[in-house]
């Protein structure tokens, strides 16, 4: 037991007390804090345990709400264990719980007990993309005609800003099929070796939708989403699809309502 306990007669002592309680709630080690807590007929550590239990239960529920299929794939008890380990190391920064879990997929990818489910982290990435689409409103799409104002010699340097709800995500596993099958009461058989997917996930009105893209389109749109100018995005797409048609691809971007702004970015290096 520590010799002293913060009496909070000043701000630094209060900060110290709160940091100690934070460590006890997240880490479970109450040694630093118990001396500051009145027993009132109960072990102070048990009193801290009530808060700890609440924090882990509610934050675990929030993760489960965002990653329901991950939870189903590993079963509830294992998910609670994984969520617990994640929470200890990665407590939320945002105070809106729908925004919690951005790096849960990365955590699962390196979480040894999950290594027999190589597609699990990608399912989590897909569910995170669905979550973004569900919580970000679509902006007013830009009309293709707006691009006509760009002088021809600058067209290669145009960068297009895409809808904020969009995510692009590729996996060596058929993640969309795995996800869809696990939304059913009776999970139909899935051939997980049926090949990978390149997905576009977005908000459409109130709904969330996704679709598979061909390799050239996926590469092109991913490059635009990363902020590359048209010439660079086209070069990336052509590597995947030698017959890639920039004019048609750009038209589709506008027709799908994906573009919300554009700007000319001559300082960005473009391939020659």
């Amino acid at each position, binding site marked *: 037991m520590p010799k002293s306990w913060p*009496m909070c007669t000043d701000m630094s002592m*209060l900060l110290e007390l709160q940091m100690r309680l934070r460590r006890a709630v997240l880490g479970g080690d109450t040694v630093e804090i118990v001396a500051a807590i009145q027993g009132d007929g109960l072990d102070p550590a048990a009193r801290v345990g009530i808060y700890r239990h609440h*924090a882990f239960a509610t934050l675990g529920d929030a993760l489960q709400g965002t990653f329901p299929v991950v939870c189903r794939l590993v079963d509830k008890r294992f998910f609670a264990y994984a969520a617990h380990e994640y929470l200890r190391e990665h407590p939320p*920064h945002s105070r809106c719980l729908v925004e919690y879990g951005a790096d849960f997929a990365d955590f699962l990818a390196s979480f040894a007990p999950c290594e027999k489910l190589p597609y699990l982290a990608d399912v989590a990435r897909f569910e995170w993309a669905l979550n973004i689409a569900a919580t970000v409103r679509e902006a007013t799409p830009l009309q293709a005609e707006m691009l006509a104002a760009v002088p021809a010699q600058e067209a290669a340097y145009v960068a297009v800003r895409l809808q904020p709800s969009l995510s692009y995500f590729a996996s060596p596993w058929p993640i969309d099929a795995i996800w869809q099958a696990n939304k059913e009461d009776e999970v139909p058989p899935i051939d997980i070796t049926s090949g990978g997917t390149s997905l576009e996930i977005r908000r459409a009105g109130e709904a969330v939708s996704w679709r598979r893209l061909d390799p050239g389109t996926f590469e092109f749109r991913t490059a635009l989403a990363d902020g590359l100018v048209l010439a660079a995005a086209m070069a990336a797409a052509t590597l995947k699809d030698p017959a890639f048609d920039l004019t048609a691809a750009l038209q589709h971007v506008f027709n799908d309502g994906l573009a919300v702004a554009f700007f000319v970015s001559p300082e960005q290096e473009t391939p020659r």
Partner: protein
Amino acid sequence: MTKRRPIPSCSVGIGLRSPHVSEIAATRPAIGFLEVHAENYMAETPALDRLLELRRDYPVSLHGVALSLGSAEELDRRHLCRFKALMERIEPLLVSEHLAWSAIGGAYLNDLLPLPYTEASLHLFCRHVEEAQEALGQRLLIENPSAYLRYRYSPIPEPEFIGEVARRTGCGILCDVNNIYVSAWNFGFDPAAYLDALPVDAIREIHLAGHHAAEDVDILIDDHSSRVVKPVWELHAAALRRFGPVPTLIEWDTNLPTLEVLLDEANHAEELAYVHRYVDAA
């Protein structure tokens, strides 16, 4: 409707939870006001759109759970800005927060952790209430927490502390009657004496909710998962006698009942308000 209607002092509201939204929108039951947790509506979800529709017909009260006014560090300005942005869209009649802290050092613990009640923490808490009121442009109501621990060095009694916060900052008090009952049970104090120690003029809202007894220890857990228990109704009646009519909310956040059950609880609170107004006061 753009003009904001005040919440009548005798009105009873319910906490709005998503499984009840469609039924409320379809049947438009008589409810005094709807209260929502601010943090549940800061993202651009369809739920926000539903709330914006309901607010045309019901006064809305915004209940913050994460401003963490008791943290021994600066307030989260980004979160305050989001709170303010939501207020501008909802135009809430009441805005409340807690006498607690929930975040420190960049970690949000999603729990209402207790403060030690000292001169230093009083000074800090008042400064944060003032900063929040200024940033939000609205008087806050501060709710007394339910608690499972108290600190060895905490010389100011809680009702005195919250009363002093109200006096120094001009904020109102959200008197959670169930929280008083839960804390009184957990620490062995007299809940009626707590009520008597609160400043009558500062009370602007009352919360009522259910709780449950922990399995292995003699502790009550404030989990908003059941009907309000009889002793809490009795304490509420005492609160009405002391404070007069105050907008009252039924909170039910987990293990949700049907809307019918929730409205039945609200009806009971309305009956009590009626009894107080026309019988007790006579």
